């Protein structure tokens, strides 16, 4: 073991959040799931709610999230995390509940569950990782796959004539009165990462203040199934994903606005 002397006049500006376990993740090198995990953990640390937070992992590449977050966790059936979260939150209203879901999970098989939970204004938070593909099953088309994007199930590129246009979930969910805070962010560079962190924090605060349902859509990459280099994937995403999926808040309820202003 190497012990490193930290000079006395150095102060800690970044350390592993307590809300993450020590376990190494199984994610591919450069996968943005890791960044998003970290941001959530940082926010939970900052809000001091780790010991009363219950997370729900989806089926998708982040299916093992429960090994990485240092808190109570459940693993949902594919797409059903919002229903499970509803069940948990309704019987444990003083706990903080969040779901972590991919785009196949949330925007395909789980469409009904997320829309209805949002509409009911369920008091949990959803972190929605949009990487425009089904990562875990090896790169099939997701509801969010961009027009023309090649995947294993759209081998000649997504054909909007037969598969429809990519779904803008943040815009769709914003229509529902039960949704108090809905935003879209991206973790393609440090600035975006900082903003995403702030958004995640606001989402959890929305929950803590019982203002309604909150969701942060995070544009992400999947270099492996996009068949790109890590940096190339970020560049591609910045160029193409952000063009289709505009960043920013799609829904800020009055309550949330008040919250924003008091910060």
């Amino acid at each position: 073991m190497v012990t490193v002397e930290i000079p006395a006049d150095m102060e800690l500006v970044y350390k592993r959040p307590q809300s993450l376990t020590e376990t190494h993740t199984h994610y591919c090198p450069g996968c943005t799931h890791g960044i998003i995990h970290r941001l959530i953990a940082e926010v939970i640390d900052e809000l001091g709610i780790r010991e009363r937070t219950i997370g729900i992992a989806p089926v998708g590449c982040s299916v093992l999230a429960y090994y990485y977050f240092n808190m109570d966790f459940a693993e949902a059936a594919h797409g059903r995390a919002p229903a499970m979260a509803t069940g948990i939150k309704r019987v444990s209203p003083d706990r903080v509940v969040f779901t972590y879901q991919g785009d196949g999970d949330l925007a395909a098989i789980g469409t009904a569950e997320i829309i209805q939970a949002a509409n009911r204004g369920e008091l949990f938070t959803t972190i929605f990782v949009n990487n425009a593909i089904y990562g875990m099953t090896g790169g099939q088309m997701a509801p969010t796959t961009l027009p023309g994007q090649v995947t294993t199930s759209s081998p000649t590129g997504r054909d909007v004539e037969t598969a429809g246009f990519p779904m803008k979930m943040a815009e769709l969910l914003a229509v529902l009165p039960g949704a108090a805070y809905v935003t879209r962010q991206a973790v393609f560079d440090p600035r975006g990462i900082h903003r995403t962190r702030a958004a995640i924090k606001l989402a959890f605060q929305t929950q803590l203040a019982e203002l309604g349902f909150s969701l942060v859509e995070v544009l992400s990459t999947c270099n492996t199934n996009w068949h790109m280099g890590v940096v190339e994937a970020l560049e591609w995403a910045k160029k193409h994903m952000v063009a289709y999926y505009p960043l920013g808040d799609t829904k800020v309820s009055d309550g949330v606005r008040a919250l924003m202003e008091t910060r």
Partner: protein
Amino acid sequence: MAKELLEGNAAIAEAAIRAGLEAYFGYPITPQTEVLEHLARRLPEEGRVFLQAESEVASINMVYGAACAGARVMTSSSSPGISLMQEGLSYIACSEVPAVVINIMRGGPGLGNVAPSQGDYFQAVKMAGHGDFHPIVLAPGNIQEAIDLVVLAFDLAEKYRTIAMVVADGSLGQMMEPAELPPMRPVRPPAERPPWALTGARGRQPNIITSLYLEPEVLEEVNLRLQAKLQEIAANEVRWKEYSSEDADLLLVAFGTVGRVCQTAVREARRQGLKVGLLRPITLWPFPSARLAELAGQVRGMLVVEMNAGQMVEDVRLAVEGRCPVRFYGRLGGIIPLPDEILPELERLDKEC
């Protein structure tokens, strides 16, 4: 408490409340909607959780969530709705959280109709969705038993951390008969939720509830543990009722509504001089196989009567293993076989065995 004239569905719902039900998630479907409606009224009165879900898929996953949080929770539905719950049931089975599910079966397949049926016997006893699992399946024959079995379902579900399913049909759900509700149990306070529950990792290691085990060796171990639990349940929880079986040389086997119809058939057959007995399984899983095997040595033949094309009869045959003839009589499509149809079958059995 004195007996009241209770309607089956309402009795089931109220029994669940008395048993300490903390939360109900469900979706309307005939012929069980009265369960949901009773709870829609009563649970908020009691300050507990009632939520009409957007679907049965959502219901069962809400149940899954609430169960993970350590709450006493239940859903109810009828055949098509239960089919939609199969994936969720399989997750619950593997995750070993307790859940109570009511299936007031209706005529099938497909949309079928809302008349009484026992067409989901196989679906209930052979599996919880995909994979190897048997929920505990309880089949009340009358309203008092429905009440008692609902209470028992919660206790068994929690004791074994498993799914306890109560199956009945619309005729039980809609009939009225005098019965006594149990006293109101206090609701378990959130602070006393079980140690494995997801309650927030305060001063302890995080709890994880999952059904994912990537390594086959590990999943095999999980399955062996599940199987051991099932064996324990099979050893301890078999329940059935016998009527006039001591001296019987012909045996009726029937469950639920048909079971009680067969009680009448026994009386009438005895009046005609046939020494008929009845075994009414109360737990469909675990099944009273050992007792049936024993009776197979005593009787000349068995007649299984069901409101389906012959499902439980397979379990009877498995128990009997050829030691006596096992005949079947069934009605389909939502028709309840009546004693006057069963008697000729008994006479035939008497002649042929």
